């Protein structure tokens, strides 16, 4: 192989072709010949370098110098300065741009990226990019060196638990499916990420689809499946497209189909798209949907490992679970188990949303405290407000107040605090959030998404919602809290699937930790956070200069007053839209409750 002291990577994409990048490359080659450097400097083509380049651009290695905005006339000067004299040409240096990725910035302190390691680093539509990052090495190792039993043993030893939320040991799950009687077995990847605020699976599928596919092929080999499905929600069109591209490319080089990598193992994979039903994230409902039926869950047992898709033994894991597998195989179970706590190993991705400074996707070792997640990684509460609660685990999770901030984030701790890990949604709320309103909000979601098959979930969630709506409107009754607690208990214990069983969690946890807010709403008809419209009123205080702006903007003409005189809001007419407060330049409109 010929040795070059310098490599120039020139960005080639449709935009730069239009700007004459090929002419630039020719000019560069000619100039290198002229200056006698052609044997030392190699010019290569690469894909788009930066998102919004200003003109043609290139990166020079080994220095990693990024040049942009180069014209053909600049080439002789650039070659002489950089390659002959070894000086960086400052005027072409690309400006440091702020990362435009709003979801996933550079890793923050305390982050450890395992599942997200390739996200934003590789081209997800090019299998070679994944292979360069040691992709499909684990599959090669498994097929050439390991028996299915050894693979399962390795996954059990790693301590990996289901990242979809329930936290069951992945290796044990595989073992059940493997030992289930039957020749035909199916493998499913649950990519029906429906929890509001959770988008980590979408990001992995869009940015690193091969890691999920590789994990699935390894699982299929361990269990003995020849057919797999990825069930992806239709709300994620890009993820579906990238998955299909990835499968096509993997099939083209023999990573799917018969005799994978020359072994006697055969496996194929198909993508199935949901049609918008939250409950399809539940495994039995998901399988019904793949079969072309209404996505309604059925009682378990029999568990899918015994009787799943079309009645055959089936293994279902979440996107993130599969994405962990290749690295567990290539870096070893001990490496994986070195991260996390005694019972919760490895890392977990979280999508932080709500009132924190850095919203977006993070990946942290399990066992990190909520405080570290919210303040160190999340950058603290927006606008220097006070933390009030964090809701973990999506709509089936609970709201935890400040006293839990130092609790480690692991499956057991979250469960004992009345919440769940779930798929990793994390909604942070500041002091201005009304917890009764939040509980009402989550109940509105679950009662809407209840599939209606079992009565406790269908009717029970509706009854809870009605009571909460009443409380928020100032019609709460003294017995409401007891009724809510009873309903929560009954729905939890008698519902058919995880949706109903988890639905009361937001209500139960807010009743437990923020009971006084419920009491203020019910007894004093007051919303301490000043959110519930029926329980607040607007008042104009002495700071009013009588400028008439609020009166002119009031949609119901509830504000009266002469110019330069204190205005008054008629509480009877006021619809509490808050426009007066927004338009007042003197902070003279206050919300009282």
């Amino acid at each position: 192989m010929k040795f070059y002291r310098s490599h120039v990577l020139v960005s080639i994409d449709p935009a730069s072709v239009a700007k004459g990048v090929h002419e630039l490359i020719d000019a560069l080659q000619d100039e290198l010949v002229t200056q006698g450097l052609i044997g030392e400097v190699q010019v290569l083509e690469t894909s788009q370098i930066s998102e919004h380049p200003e003109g043609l651009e290139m990166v020079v290695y080994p220095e990693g110098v990024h040049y942009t905005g180069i014209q053909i006339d600049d080439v002789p000067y650039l070659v002489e300065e950089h390659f002959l004299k070894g000086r960086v040409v400052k005027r072409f240096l690309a400006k440091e741009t702020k990362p435009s990725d709003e979801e996933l910035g550079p890793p923050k302190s305390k982050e450890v990226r395992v599942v997200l390691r390739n996200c934003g680093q590789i081209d997800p539509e090019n299998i070679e990019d994944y292979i360069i990052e040691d992709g499909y090495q684990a599959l090669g190792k498994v097929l050439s060196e390991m028996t299915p039993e050894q693979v399962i043993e390795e996954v059990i030893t790693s301590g990996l638990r289901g990242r979809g939320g329930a936290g069951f040991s992945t290796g044990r799950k595989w073992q059940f499916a493997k030992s289930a009687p039957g020749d035909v077995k199916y493998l499913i990847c649950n990519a029906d990420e429906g929890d509001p605020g959770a988008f980590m699976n979408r990001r992995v599928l869009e940015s690193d689809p091969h890691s999920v596919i590789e994990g699935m092929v390894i699982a299929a080999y361990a269990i003995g499946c020849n057919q797999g499905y990825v069930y992806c929600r239709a709300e994620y069109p890009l993820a579906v497209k990238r998955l299909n591209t990835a499968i096509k490319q993997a099939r083209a080089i023999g990573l799917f189909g018969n005799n994978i990598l020359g072994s006697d193992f055969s496996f194929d994979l198909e993508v199935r798209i949901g049609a918008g039903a939250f409950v399809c994230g539940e495994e039995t409902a998901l399988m019904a949907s793949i079969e072309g039926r209404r996505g309604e869950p059925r009682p378990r047992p029999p568990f899918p490992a015994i009787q799943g898709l079309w009645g055959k033994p089936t293994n279902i894991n979440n996107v993130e679970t599969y994405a962990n597998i290749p690295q567990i195989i290539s870096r070893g179970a001990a490496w994986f188990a070195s991260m996390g706590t005694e019972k919760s190993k490895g890392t977990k991705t979280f999508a932080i949303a709500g009132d924190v400074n850095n919203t977006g996707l993070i990946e942290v070792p399990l066992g990190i405290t909520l405080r570290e997640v919210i303040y160190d990684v999340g950058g603290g509460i927006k606008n220097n407000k006070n933390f009030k609660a964090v809701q973990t685990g999506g709509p089936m999770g609970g709201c935890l107040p400040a006293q839990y901030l130092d609790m480690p984030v692991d499956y057991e701790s979250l469960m004992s605090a009345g919440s769940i890990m779930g798929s990793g949604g994390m909604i942070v709320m500041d002091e201005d959030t009304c917890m009764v309103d939040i509980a009402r909000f989550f109940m509105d979601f679950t009662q809407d998404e209840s599939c209606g098959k079992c009565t406790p979930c269908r009717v029970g969630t509706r009854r809870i919602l009605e009571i909460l709506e009443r409380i928020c409107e100032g019609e709460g009754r003294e017995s409401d809290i007891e009724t809510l607690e009873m309903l929560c208990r009954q729905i939890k214990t008698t519902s058919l699937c995880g949706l109903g069983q988890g639905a009361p969690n937001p209500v139960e946890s807010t009743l437990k930790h923020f009971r006084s807010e419920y009491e203020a709403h019910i007894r004093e008809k007051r919303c301490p956070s000043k959110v519930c419209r029926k329980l607040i009123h607007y008042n104009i205080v002495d700071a009013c200069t009588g400028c008439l702006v609020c009166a002119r903007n009031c949609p119901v003409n509830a504000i009266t007053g002469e110019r330069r005189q204190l205005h008054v809001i008629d509480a009877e007419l006021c619809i509490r839209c808050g426009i007066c407060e927004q338009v007042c330049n003197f902070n003279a409109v206050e919300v009282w409750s």
Partner: protein
Amino acid sequence: MITNIKNGLDVSTVVQAAVSQHGATHEDLIPILLSVNEQLGYLPTEALSEISHSLRLAHSEIMAVASFYRMLSTEPRGKHVIQFCESAPCHVMGGRQVLRALQEELNLEPGQTSADGQWTLLEISCPGICGVGPVMMIDEDVYGNLVPERLSEILAKYRE
């Protein structure tokens, strides 16, 4: 009442194309319904009957599936479908004020289609772009970081 089928397409042709693309077994039902819904704008009764015939499945079975999933509609929808995310992350970022303003602007409640057939307003489950909440989608276009003031400018793009 709007009975126009999007683009004046022939129902039977659309259904048969979807069936030959996806297959004619029970497990192909949802992909077929999604294709037909996308092309026709909704699932008219004639389409359901035609699918029932092609897949040899009872009409009730087809209807059970078509009415279950949120992305499938058995009612005609407006020319532009606005899907507003009212999930928790968008809610705490001020999504409710934006939705309220949108409702006032269009004079529609979620789930309704305007009398002139221009707009359908829907609340959707989280599309997972919470980093830029509050979020809505108009047809295929996504709009993030919404504030009530931006609405009329956005809607104007779709008004003729």
